[in-house]
């Protein structure tokens, strides 16, 4: 191990850990398949990987996986969109009013850590079992990140840039649009990413809990019908799409960061 760590970097050397990681997963899947084939685990409770793979076509043709995927992501973008639309002005206001910032910043931080999703029966009572509940809850989960990151970004604008703006006699609105907002964009982009991630987690979670909507509902439906291979397949699909989504938002966020 020390020899590998100390050697000069090369393609093979960089690829080695990745290959080991992939191989470890392949071995785990093979062991699972073997255990299912030889009866060490009951396929009634833990279907084999090959059964799960075979369930995928039916997920697309019979369970409307593509439609559900778009529904879940539409809800996610809608919720995150509301969080951005409300969060940026709120963050700007907390930045402009330092006393309000001092008074509410900790509260908003505390709200971010509160187990809001546990209160979903309350939202069911207020909004009903529909997309509204999913979007409102997911928006609220992403809102604190958006507010705090906007405030952080605006607070962090370099003093020298503000002084340059003043020396040019910029009006407050021009100062905001031409100096403060562009300087805060990387931090705000981080907030947008966090809002999207929190929104997606909540959308899938609430869909699963209230048995309504897209991918989350599909998992719950399949579990209730005891269609375990398809259920495992749907869970795998949700994980893969989540991972792809986090990766894509991470790349998009990097694009907004200053280069060089």
């Amino acid at each position, binding site marked *: 191990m020390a020899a590998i760590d100390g050697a000069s970097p090369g393609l093979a050397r960089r690829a080695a850990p990745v290959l080991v990681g992939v191989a470890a997963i392949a071995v785990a899947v093979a062991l699972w398949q073997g255990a299912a084939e030889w009866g060490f685990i009951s396929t009634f409770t833990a279907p084999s990987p090959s059964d799960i793979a075979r369930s995928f076509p039916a997920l697309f043709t019979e369970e409307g996986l593509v439609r559900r995927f778009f529904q879940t992501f539409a809800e996610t973008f809608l919720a995150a969109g509301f969080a951005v639309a409300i969060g940026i002005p709120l963050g700007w206001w907390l930045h402009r009013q330092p006393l309000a910032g001092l008074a509410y910043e900790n509260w908003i931080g505390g709200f971010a850590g509160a187990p809001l999703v546990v209160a979903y029966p309350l939202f069911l009572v207020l909004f009903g079992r529909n997309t509204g509940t999913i979007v409102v809850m997911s928006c609220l989960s992403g809102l604190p990140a958006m507010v705090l990151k906007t405030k952080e970004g605006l607070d962090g604008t370099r003093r020298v840039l503000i002084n340059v703006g003043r020396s040019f006699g910029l009006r407050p609105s021009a100062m905001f649009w031409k100096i403060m907002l562009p300087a805060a964009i990387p931090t705000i982009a981080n907030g947008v990413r966090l809002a999207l991630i929190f929104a997606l987690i909540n959308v899938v979670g609430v869909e699963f809990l209230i048995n309504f909507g897209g991918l989350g509902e599909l998992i719950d439906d*399949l579990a209730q019908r005891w269609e375990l291979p398809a259920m495992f397949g749907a869970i795998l699909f949700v994980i893969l799409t989540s991972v792809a989504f986090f990766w894509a938002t991470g790349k998009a966020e990097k694009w907004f960061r200053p280069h060089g």
Partner: protein
Amino acid sequence: MAELMATLPLAARGRFGLVTLIRAATLVLLWALWEGAARSGLFYAGALPSSFTIAAAALDLFVMPAFYYNLGVTVLEVAAAMAIGVASGISVGLALGASRFAGKAFEPYLQYLAPAPKIIFLPVFMVMFGIGPGSKVAIGALSCFFPMVLSVIAGVRQVDPVLLRVGRSFQLSLAQTVAKIYLPALLPPIATGLRLGLGVAIIGTLLSEIKMSNRGLGFLIMQDYGRFDIAEMYAVLAVIFVLVTLANGVIARCLRMKGRG
């Protein structure tokens, strides 16, 4: 608090007083809005009860033996989930953090899986452990594992290499290196992981109870929802929020005390 105030300059003290005033005014305003909405007749009274009704329901809750039984069940489930999540998180974190090769091989999977919604694993855990406390503990442990393991990996990478070289020069065994160098140096990241892990373990456990269970605070919420006893449901939710805030506060205070000490 008085000692802290005395050390502040006059202007800061005035600011502190204003902030407290704004907070108090906000709370009063929120309460007035709630009461106004509840009494306006615009909303169904059952869905938006008066704050006095909720307070009365909370008082009733505190004299109900069933509340303490369900609270005890949830606390035990969360404690078991934390024990499993923390122990496995520290072990895996130490292994992946100490070996750069293993870290590169497996850490990306952990990084990407960490934010995935864990509640979707509930049907799998129900199949494996049944609908009793086992599946709730499993979801809680899985939720707690990720913040803990990622915190520990980051912490291990920040351990001063000089300490490790000193350990090697004293010919410490692996167990001694872990016990005498890694764990003391890792206390802050472990505490951070603990704080983050506790929050998500509580959420995971409660959501599992809400989804399907016959005991615990989550079950109590669903029971109230089923009976449309909304005032009591608000009261249980308020108790949960207060307990989570207190638990977070206790850990944060311990962290600050450790930092000062």
